[in-house]
Protein backbone atom coordinates (compact mmCIF):
# COMPACT_ATOMS: atom_id res chain seq x y z
CA UNK A 1 0.00 0.00 0.00
CA UNK A 2 2.85 2.34 0.76
CA UNK A 3 4.28 2.03 -2.71
CA UNK A 4 0.87 2.60 -4.31
CA UNK A 5 0.29 5.75 -2.31
CA UNK A 6 3.06 7.44 -4.23
CA UNK A 7 1.05 7.21 -7.43
CA UNK A 8 -2.23 8.40 -5.93
CA UNK A 9 -3.36 11.89 -6.86
CA UNK A 10 -3.70 14.37 -4.03
CA UNK A 11 -7.52 14.29 -4.01
CA UNK A 12 -7.57 10.52 -3.60
CA UNK A 13 -5.27 10.80 -0.61
CA UNK A 14 -7.48 13.48 0.86
CA UNK A 15 -10.74 11.48 0.80
CA UNK A 16 -9.16 8.08 1.06
CA UNK A 17 -8.81 5.21 -1.40
CA UNK A 18 -11.70 3.26 0.10
CA UNK A 19 -14.10 6.16 -0.34
CA UNK A 20 -13.01 6.54 -3.94
CA UNK A 21 -13.65 2.86 -4.53
CA UNK A 22 -17.09 3.12 -2.89
CA UNK A 23 -17.97 6.16 -4.99
CA UNK A 24 -16.91 4.27 -8.09
CA UNK A 25 -19.16 1.35 -7.23
CA UNK A 26 -21.99 3.71 -6.30
CA UNK A 27 -21.60 5.31 -9.71
CA UNK A 28 -21.97 1.95 -11.46
CA UNK A 29 -25.00 1.08 -9.36
CA UNK A 30 -26.58 4.47 -9.97
CA UNK A 31 -25.95 4.37 -13.71
CA UNK A 32 -27.11 0.79 -13.93
CA UNK A 33 -30.36 1.46 -12.14
CA UNK A 34 -30.97 4.63 -14.13
CA UNK A 35 -30.49 2.69 -17.33
CA UNK A 36 -32.64 -0.15 -16.05
CA UNK A 37 -35.48 2.25 -15.23
CA UNK A 38 -35.09 3.92 -18.61
CA UNK A 39 -35.19 0.62 -20.44
CA UNK A 40 -38.21 -0.45 -18.41
CA UNK A 41 -40.09 2.49 -19.94
CA UNK A 42 -38.87 1.42 -23.34
CA UNK A 43 -40.86 -1.79 -23.58
CA UNK A 44 -44.09 -2.65 -25.30
CA UNK A 45 -45.60 -3.79 -21.98
CA UNK A 46 -44.92 -0.37 -20.50
CA UNK A 47 -46.46 1.44 -23.45
CA UNK A 48 -49.67 -0.56 -23.38
CA UNK A 49 -49.98 -0.35 -19.61
CA UNK A 50 -51.86 2.86 -20.46
CA UNK A 51 -55.27 2.12 -21.91
CA UNK A 52 -54.83 5.11 -24.23
CA UNK A 53 -52.23 3.11 -26.10
CA UNK A 54 -53.74 -0.31 -25.57
CA UNK A 55 -57.21 0.55 -26.82
CA UNK A 56 -56.25 2.72 -29.76
CA UNK A 57 -52.89 2.48 -31.46
CA UNK A 58 -51.95 -0.95 -30.16
CA UNK A 59 -55.13 -2.54 -31.50
CA UNK A 60 -54.54 -1.07 -34.95
CA UNK A 61 -50.92 -2.15 -34.90
CA UNK A 62 -51.93 -5.76 -34.25
CA UNK A 63 -53.17 -6.06 -37.83
CA UNK A 64 -49.90 -4.96 -39.34
CA UNK A 65 -46.72 -6.66 -40.45
CA UNK A 66 -44.67 -5.10 -37.68
CA UNK A 67 -46.76 -6.95 -35.10
CA UNK A 68 -47.13 -10.33 -36.72
CA UNK A 69 -45.33 -11.76 -39.70
CA UNK A 70 -43.81 -14.87 -41.22
CA UNK A 71 -40.56 -14.95 -39.24
CA UNK A 72 -41.79 -13.46 -35.97
CA UNK A 73 -39.27 -10.63 -36.02
CA UNK A 74 -41.13 -7.66 -34.64
CA UNK A 75 -40.78 -3.94 -34.33
CA UNK A 76 -42.40 -2.95 -31.07
CA UNK A 77 -43.47 0.57 -30.01
CA UNK A 78 -40.03 1.92 -28.96
CA UNK A 79 -38.34 0.50 -32.05
CA UNK A 80 -40.17 3.08 -34.13
CA UNK A 81 -41.00 5.80 -31.64
CA UNK A 82 -37.84 6.10 -29.52
CA UNK A 83 -34.40 6.78 -31.05
CA UNK A 84 -31.72 4.20 -30.30
CA UNK A 85 -28.83 6.65 -29.78
CA UNK A 86 -28.30 7.89 -26.25
CA UNK A 87 -28.56 11.63 -26.85
CA UNK A 88 -31.69 11.67 -29.04
CA UNK A 89 -33.21 9.04 -26.74
CA UNK A 90 -32.76 11.31 -23.71
CA UNK A 91 -34.31 14.22 -25.59
CA UNK A 92 -37.27 12.07 -26.66
CA UNK A 93 -37.72 10.75 -23.13
CA UNK A 94 -37.78 14.27 -21.72
CA UNK A 95 -40.32 15.30 -24.35
CA UNK A 96 -42.38 12.30 -23.29
CA UNK A 97 -43.03 13.95 -19.94
CA UNK A 98 -45.60 15.98 -21.88
CA UNK A 99 -47.32 12.71 -22.68
CA UNK A 100 -47.44 11.86 -18.97
CA UNK A 101 -49.09 15.26 -18.38
CA UNK A 102 -51.74 14.54 -21.01
CA UNK A 103 -52.26 11.10 -19.53
CA UNK A 104 -53.13 12.84 -16.26
CA UNK A 105 -55.38 15.31 -18.08
CA UNK A 106 -57.06 12.43 -19.93
CA UNK A 107 -56.65 14.19 -23.29
CA UNK A 108 -57.06 11.03 -25.35
CA UNK A 109 -58.61 8.61 -22.88
CA UNK A 110 -61.45 7.49 -25.16
CA UNK A 111 -61.28 6.31 -28.78
CA UNK A 112 -63.45 9.31 -29.72
CA UNK A 113 -61.04 11.76 -28.15
CA UNK A 114 -58.14 9.92 -29.69
CA UNK A 115 -59.62 10.04 -33.17
CA UNK A 116 -60.34 13.73 -32.78
CA UNK A 117 -56.64 14.28 -32.15
CA UNK A 118 -55.40 11.63 -34.53
CA UNK A 119 -54.32 14.02 -37.21
CA UNK A 120 -52.33 16.20 -34.84
CA UNK A 121 -50.64 13.20 -33.25
CA UNK A 122 -49.84 11.62 -36.59
CA UNK A 123 -48.46 14.89 -37.90
CA UNK A 124 -46.02 15.04 -34.98
CA UNK A 125 -44.65 11.64 -35.84
CA UNK A 126 -44.50 12.38 -39.57
CA UNK A 127 -42.62 15.60 -38.88
CA UNK A 128 -40.25 13.88 -36.50
CA UNK A 129 -39.49 11.09 -38.97
CA UNK A 130 -39.14 13.50 -41.86
CA UNK A 131 -36.70 15.59 -39.84
CA UNK A 132 -34.47 12.67 -38.83
CA UNK A 133 -34.61 10.99 -42.25
CA UNK A 134 -36.77 8.13 -40.90
CA UNK A 135 -33.96 7.09 -38.62
CA UNK A 136 -36.02 4.55 -36.71
CA UNK A 137 -37.09 2.81 -39.94
CA UNK A 138 -33.52 2.74 -41.09
CA UNK A 139 -32.35 1.00 -37.93
CA UNK A 140 -33.65 -2.12 -39.70
CA UNK A 141 -34.50 -1.11 -43.25
CA UNK A 142 -31.24 0.05 -44.81
CA UNK A 143 -31.79 1.03 -48.39
CA UNK A 144 -28.14 0.60 -49.33
CA UNK A 145 -28.58 -3.10 -48.49
CA UNK A 146 -31.90 -3.55 -50.28
CA UNK A 147 -31.93 -6.25 -52.93
CA UNK A 148 -34.34 -4.93 -55.53
CA UNK A 149 -34.46 -8.30 -57.29
CA UNK A 150 -36.07 -9.72 -54.17
CA UNK A 151 -38.67 -6.97 -54.02
CA UNK A 152 -42.01 -6.94 -55.78
CA UNK A 153 -42.27 -5.15 -59.11
CA UNK A 154 -43.78 -2.07 -57.62
CA UNK A 155 -41.34 -1.76 -54.73
CA UNK A 156 -38.35 -2.41 -57.00
CA UNK A 157 -39.54 0.33 -59.35
CA UNK A 158 -40.40 2.94 -56.75
CA UNK A 159 -37.59 2.55 -54.22
CA UNK A 160 -34.59 3.53 -56.38
CA UNK A 161 -36.62 6.37 -57.86
CA UNK A 162 -37.58 7.72 -54.45
CA UNK A 163 -34.05 7.44 -53.05
CA UNK A 164 -32.62 9.33 -56.01
CA UNK A 165 -35.15 12.07 -55.37
CA UNK A 166 -33.94 12.19 -51.78
CA UNK A 167 -37.16 10.97 -50.27
CA UNK A 168 -37.31 9.29 -46.92
CA UNK A 169 -39.33 6.28 -45.78
CA UNK A 170 -42.14 8.25 -44.11
CA UNK A 171 -42.81 10.25 -47.27
CA UNK A 172 -44.62 7.28 -48.77
CA UNK A 173 -45.04 4.82 -45.90
CA UNK A 174 -47.57 6.64 -43.78
CA UNK A 175 -50.18 4.73 -41.86
CA UNK A 176 -48.34 1.41 -42.07
CA UNK A 177 -48.59 0.56 -38.38
CA UNK A 178 -51.58 2.65 -37.31
CA UNK A 179 -54.67 3.91 -39.02
CA UNK A 180 -54.48 7.20 -40.82
CA UNK A 181 -56.46 10.27 -39.83
CA UNK A 182 -59.04 11.53 -42.32
CA UNK A 183 -57.23 12.40 -45.54
CA UNK A 184 -58.78 14.50 -48.29
CA UNK A 185 -58.44 12.41 -51.43
CA UNK A 186 -61.13 14.38 -53.27
CA UNK A 187 -63.60 11.53 -53.05
CA UNK A 188 -66.99 12.80 -52.01
CA UNK A 189 -67.78 15.06 -49.08
CA UNK A 190 -66.73 12.71 -46.30
CA UNK A 191 -63.18 13.98 -45.88
CA UNK A 192 -63.49 17.26 -47.72
CA UNK A 193 -61.29 19.87 -46.19
CA UNK A 194 -59.21 17.34 -44.24
CA UNK A 195 -55.46 17.31 -44.72
CA UNK A 196 -54.02 16.09 -47.95
CA UNK A 197 -51.32 13.52 -47.59
CA UNK A 198 -47.90 14.49 -48.87
CA UNK A 199 -45.60 11.99 -50.54
CA UNK A 200 -42.60 14.19 -50.08
CA UNK A 201 -42.82 15.41 -53.64
CA UNK A 202 -44.44 18.79 -53.19
CA UNK A 203 -41.62 20.70 -51.49
CA UNK A 204 -39.18 18.89 -53.77
CA UNK A 205 -40.92 20.16 -56.90
CA UNK A 206 -41.02 23.73 -55.59
CA UNK A 207 -37.29 23.91 -54.91
CA UNK A 208 -36.57 22.64 -58.40
CA UNK A 209 -38.69 25.39 -59.89
CA UNK A 210 -36.78 28.03 -57.97
CA UNK A 211 -33.48 26.78 -59.32
Amino acid at each position, binding site marked *: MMSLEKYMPAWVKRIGAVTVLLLFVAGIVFWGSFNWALEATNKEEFCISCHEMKENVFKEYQNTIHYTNRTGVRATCPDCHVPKEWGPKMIRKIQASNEVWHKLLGSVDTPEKFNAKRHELAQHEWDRMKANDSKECRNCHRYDYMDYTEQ*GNRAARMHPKAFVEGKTCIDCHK*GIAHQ*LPAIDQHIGKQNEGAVEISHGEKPEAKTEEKK
Partner: protein
Amino acid sequence: MRFIPALALAAAVLLSGAGVASAQENLESLRGKTPINQEARSDNMFRPEKDQEIIPRNFQKQPPLIPHSIKGYNITQNFNKCMDCHSKERAEETGATKVAKSHYLDREDKKLSNISPRRYFCMQCHVPQFDAKPLVENTYKPAAKKGE
Protein backbone atom coordinates in the same frame (compact mmCIF):
# COMPACT_ATOMS: atom_id res chain seq x y z
CA MET B 1 -91.41 -8.50 -57.98
CA ARG B 2 -91.71 -11.29 -55.44
CA PHE B 3 -91.75 -14.10 -57.93
CA ILE B 4 -88.20 -13.41 -59.11
CA PRO B 5 -86.19 -14.86 -56.20
CA ALA B 6 -88.48 -17.87 -56.15
CA LEU B 7 -88.05 -18.33 -59.87
CA ALA B 8 -84.30 -17.98 -59.65
CA LEU B 9 -84.17 -20.49 -56.83
CA ALA B 10 -86.25 -22.96 -58.75
CA ALA B 11 -84.04 -22.56 -61.79
CA ALA B 12 -80.91 -23.01 -59.68
CA VAL B 13 -82.24 -26.20 -58.11
CA LEU B 14 -83.19 -27.62 -61.47
CA LEU B 15 -79.90 -26.72 -63.10
CA SER B 16 -77.72 -27.94 -60.25
CA GLY B 17 -79.65 -31.19 -60.09
CA ALA B 18 -79.08 -31.83 -63.75
CA GLY B 19 -75.51 -30.55 -64.00
CA VAL B 20 -73.88 -31.88 -60.86
CA ALA B 21 -75.21 -35.42 -61.00
CA SER B 22 -72.46 -36.64 -63.33
CA ALA B 23 -69.58 -34.65 -61.82
CA GLN B 24 -70.51 -35.27 -58.21
CA GLU B 25 -68.52 -38.45 -57.71
CA ASN B 26 -65.01 -37.23 -58.57
CA LEU B 27 -65.31 -33.56 -57.73
CA GLU B 28 -63.71 -32.52 -54.46
CA SER B 29 -64.67 -29.24 -52.92
CA LEU B 30 -62.17 -26.66 -51.69
CA ARG B 31 -62.42 -27.97 -48.15
CA GLY B 32 -61.40 -31.48 -49.19
CA LYS B 33 -63.01 -34.66 -47.96
CA THR B 34 -63.66 -33.44 -44.44
CA PRO B 35 -67.24 -34.20 -43.42
CA ILE B 36 -69.46 -31.18 -43.24
CA ASN B 37 -69.86 -31.40 -39.46
CA GLN B 38 -66.10 -31.24 -38.84
CA GLU B 39 -63.76 -28.35 -39.15
CA ALA B 40 -61.57 -28.57 -42.22
CA ARG B 41 -57.88 -28.10 -41.53
CA SER B 42 -56.06 -26.50 -44.36
CA ASP B 43 -52.29 -26.83 -44.37
CA ASN B 44 -52.25 -25.46 -47.83
CA MET B 45 -53.79 -22.07 -47.54
CA PHE B 46 -54.21 -19.98 -50.61
CA ARG B 47 -51.63 -17.29 -50.92
CA PRO B 48 -51.92 -14.05 -52.78
CA GLU B 49 -50.15 -14.05 -56.13
CA LYS B 50 -46.89 -12.17 -56.33
CA ASP B 51 -46.77 -8.88 -58.18
CA GLN B 52 -47.30 -9.47 -61.85
CA GLU B 53 -47.89 -7.56 -65.05
CA ILE B 54 -51.36 -6.37 -65.99
CA ILE B 55 -53.69 -9.36 -66.37
CA PRO B 56 -55.56 -9.31 -69.71
CA ARG B 57 -59.31 -8.99 -69.45
CA ASN B 58 -61.50 -11.97 -70.22
CA PHE B 59 -64.37 -10.00 -71.67
CA GLN B 60 -65.16 -6.46 -72.63
CA LYS B 61 -65.73 -4.03 -69.80
CA GLN B 62 -64.48 -6.54 -67.25
CA PRO B 63 -63.26 -4.67 -64.20
CA PRO B 64 -59.50 -5.20 -64.43
CA LEU B 65 -58.13 -7.72 -61.93
CA ILE B 66 -55.66 -6.57 -59.27
CA PRO B 67 -52.28 -7.94 -60.36
CA HIS B 68 -50.53 -7.36 -57.05
CA SER B 69 -50.77 -8.22 -53.38
CA ILE B 70 -53.04 -5.95 -51.38
CA LYS B 71 -52.00 -7.16 -47.97
CA GLY B 72 -52.41 -4.40 -45.42
CA TYR B 73 -54.11 -2.09 -47.89
CA ASN B 74 -57.19 -0.78 -46.19
CA ILE B 75 -60.12 1.15 -47.48
CA THR B 76 -61.53 3.03 -44.53
CA GLN B 77 -63.70 6.06 -44.04
CA ASN B 78 -60.53 8.05 -43.50
CA PHE B 79 -58.37 6.81 -46.30
CA ASN B 80 -58.59 4.77 -49.47
CA LYS B 81 -55.26 3.05 -49.97
CA CYS B 82 -55.99 2.15 -53.60
CA MET B 83 -56.44 5.81 -54.48
CA ASP B 84 -53.01 6.53 -53.02
CA CYS B 85 -51.58 5.18 -56.30
CA HIS B 86 -54.45 4.81 -58.76
CA SER B 87 -55.99 8.28 -58.54
CA LYS B 88 -55.39 10.52 -61.51
CA GLU B 89 -53.14 12.79 -59.46
CA ARG B 90 -50.91 9.93 -58.37
CA ALA B 91 -51.04 7.45 -61.24
CA GLU B 92 -48.36 9.07 -63.35
CA GLU B 93 -45.81 9.07 -60.58
CA THR B 94 -46.59 5.60 -59.30
CA GLY B 95 -47.03 3.95 -62.69
CA ALA B 96 -50.37 2.53 -61.59
CA THR B 97 -53.36 2.15 -63.88
CA LYS B 98 -55.40 5.31 -63.78
CA VAL B 99 -58.99 5.07 -62.57
CA ALA B 100 -61.27 4.85 -65.60
CA LYS B 101 -63.35 7.84 -66.65
CA SER B 102 -66.57 5.95 -65.94
CA HIS B 103 -65.70 6.21 -62.24
CA TYR B 104 -66.17 9.97 -62.37
CA LEU B 105 -69.86 9.78 -63.20
CA ASP B 106 -72.56 9.95 -60.62
CA ARG B 107 -75.70 7.88 -61.04
CA GLU B 108 -77.28 10.56 -63.23
CA ASP B 109 -74.24 10.29 -65.52
CA LYS B 110 -73.18 13.75 -64.46
CA LYS B 111 -69.39 14.16 -64.56
CA LEU B 112 -67.77 14.90 -61.22
CA SER B 113 -64.40 16.51 -60.65
CA ASN B 114 -63.11 13.34 -59.02
CA ILE B 115 -64.03 9.76 -58.19
CA SER B 116 -67.71 9.28 -57.50
CA PRO B 117 -68.34 8.17 -53.92
CA ARG B 118 -70.35 5.21 -55.25
CA ARG B 119 -67.04 3.86 -56.63
CA TYR B 120 -65.32 4.17 -53.27
CA PHE B 121 -65.10 0.47 -52.48
CA CYS B 122 -62.72 -0.68 -55.20
CA MET B 123 -62.86 -4.34 -54.27
CA GLN B 124 -66.55 -4.63 -54.95
CA CYS B 125 -65.51 -5.07 -58.58
CA HIS B 126 -61.73 -5.33 -58.73
CA VAL B 127 -60.38 -8.43 -57.05
CA PRO B 128 -56.88 -9.62 -56.17
CA GLN B 129 -55.67 -13.01 -57.35
CA PHE B 130 -54.91 -16.07 -55.26
CA ASP B 131 -53.23 -19.28 -56.30
CA ALA B 132 -56.49 -21.21 -55.99
CA LYS B 133 -56.65 -23.47 -59.01
CA PRO B 134 -60.10 -23.91 -60.52
CA LEU B 135 -61.84 -27.11 -59.42
CA VAL B 136 -63.32 -27.65 -62.84
CA GLU B 137 -62.08 -26.59 -66.20
CA ASN B 138 -63.51 -23.33 -67.42
CA THR B 139 -64.47 -23.26 -71.05
CA TYR B 140 -65.75 -19.72 -71.04
CA LYS B 141 -65.10 -17.79 -74.24
CA PRO B 142 -65.86 -14.10 -74.54
CA ALA B 143 -68.08 -12.81 -77.29
CA ALA B 144 -66.14 -11.63 -80.32
CA LYS B 145 -64.48 -8.30 -79.81
CA LYS B 146 -65.19 -5.36 -82.03
CA GLY B 147 -63.71 -5.87 -85.48
CA GLU B 148 -63.21 -9.61 -85.09
